[in-house]
């Protein structure tokens, strides 16, 4: 599903002393099937943005188009349920939304609300727990008896079982240890490719944006500050620093390397490839001296 924001603004608590314009005339397009990272500081508007993707918030001005569904300022959307079925959102710390007696019931909760049949729910549940690598014996257990990491996987399965076409991830790895983080992100990437999902990842991690996204949107003060491929974005180190954002470590390393006479351009090399290039330069006997 293509996603288009057309001059979207959103204001919290309009006409009160607490009035706050969180999105300010925001326009961008996300291609169907792409993996987009949305980056920005707390308060940059990214969390308001994602709530527009499944109609939790309705624009104060402008229009949001998600596939065939339109949300326009001042107009009631009659297909809200359809939209929510098609756009799965994994919120920050999604394990906080678990409530059923068993893991299986909790995973089936979403699809059931959208009127999916029992057999189909069973099938999807099985598929979802496999996708997140949860052992099937856990299905009968209470979600509250599981470890934190397992609970997160259950919550993610619950969203996957809705069988969405668009997957929105709001810092899905927050609070996990490095191992768990990588496992979860690899899992989402795999799903993205296998199912041809449109994935929107909200993250603070430049490393994740670099590793997984094919398009990056940098938000600042409710506007798109920069937009482009990871390589295009991370070349603009200064622009990112201006809004107090970092670049991936490899990029800042290469920038510093320039001061030491090692002039290498970052073109998406792996660490091993980079080591080869550096080794060549170093052994090559100081071509800059």
């Amino acid at each position: 599903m293509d996603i288009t924001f057309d001059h979207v603004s959103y204001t919290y608590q309009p006409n009160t002393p607490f009035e706050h314009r969180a999105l300010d005339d925001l326009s961008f397009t996300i291609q169907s099937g792409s993996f987009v990272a949305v980056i920005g500081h707390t308060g940059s508007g990214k969390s308001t943005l994602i709530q527009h993707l499944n109609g939790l918030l309705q624009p104060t001005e402008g229009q949001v188009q998600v596939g065939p569904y339109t949300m326009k300022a001042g107009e009631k959307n009659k297909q809200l349920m359809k939209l929510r079925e098609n756009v799965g959102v994994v919120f920050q710390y999604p394990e906080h939304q678990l409530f059923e007696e068993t893991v299986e019931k909790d995973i089936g909760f979403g699809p059931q609300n959208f009127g999916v049949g029992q057999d189909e729910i069973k099938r999807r549940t099985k598929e979802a727990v496999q996708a997140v690598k949860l052992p099937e014996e856990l299905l009968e257990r209470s979600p509250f008896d599981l470890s934190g990491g397992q609970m997160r996987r259950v919550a993610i399965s619950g969203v996957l079982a809705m069988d969405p076409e668009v997957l929105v991830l709001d810092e899905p790895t927050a609070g996990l240890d490095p191992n768990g983080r990588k496992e979860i992100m690899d899992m989402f990437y795999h799903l993205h490719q296998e199912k041809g999902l449109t994935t929107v990842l909200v993250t603070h991690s430049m490393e994740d944006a670099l590793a997984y996204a094919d398009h990056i949107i940098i938000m600042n003060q409710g506007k798109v500050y920069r937009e482009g491929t990871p390589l295009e974005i991370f070349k603009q180190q200064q622009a990112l620093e201006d809004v107090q954002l970092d670049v991936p470590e490899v990029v800042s390393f290469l920038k510093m390397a320039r001061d030491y006479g090692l002039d290498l351009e970052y073109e998406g090399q792996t660490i091993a490839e980079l080591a080869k290039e550096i080794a060549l330069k170093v052994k090559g006997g100081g071509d800059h001296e």
Partner: protein
Amino acid sequence: MGERQVEFRNVSFRYQEDMPWVLRDVSFTIGPDEWVAVIGHNGSGKSTIAKLMNGLLFPQEGEILVDGMPVNEKTIWDVRKQVGMVFQNPDNQFVGTTVKDDVAFGMENHGMPRELMLERIKESLSAVGMSDYEQQEPHRLSGGQKQRVAIASVLAVSPKFIILDEATAMLDPKGRKEIMNTVHRVQEERDLSLITITHDLHEVTQSSRVIVMNKGEVWMQGSPRDVFSKKEHLQEIGLDTPFVSKLADHLKAEGVPLTREPLNHQELLEELWTSRSIM
């Protein structure tokens, strides 16, 4: 003896008799003014160490000495005065209705006179750069700001040891930086030892010593350089290593001579620079 030290002597701990040991025969010493990072994957027992240090839990075997006092039911109140703790969730340790009240909470518990409290509130809030927020309510603060208040609350009691138990895990990069800068400054300005329990590799490289935990045992101890030079072992127990450390390995494999384990970009680049001049 044992002044300004935390000492674990053959400590073993489990929550219940029929449950597996969380810690097994753990021994180490943390000296005055040290910054010790404790790392290990989830479930390695690292958070239990923190709770044992100030008597929130007691070991079944072995002994823990804080500032020369054995930690037990009789000494916990004195121990807690010496060992300040900052926890992971910024919200669930903020007791007061305002910043000022929260900083006072620990001091009130220890029965400090009001005049001293007022003085210490000023001091400790300025030490963490939160002086302008004295009257602020917690729900108007960012996660990083709340954690800075938590640090101020601990400082106000002037302990000899501060434990940060994954205190940056729930923060965004900006909040994380705020906390690390604060901690750095505080550690330089005051006489105290710092124990950080963390996943953040960047935090680890800044510490003076690292204790690596695995399956409830001390798996390795040493300077960050020593620890990261044994990366194969770290990866074995599911721990990551910093970017420069990985790059250095690949460089060595390519035949670039590197003599010491780099801890940051600059160290690696400087060595590359020297090795280039030699070649």
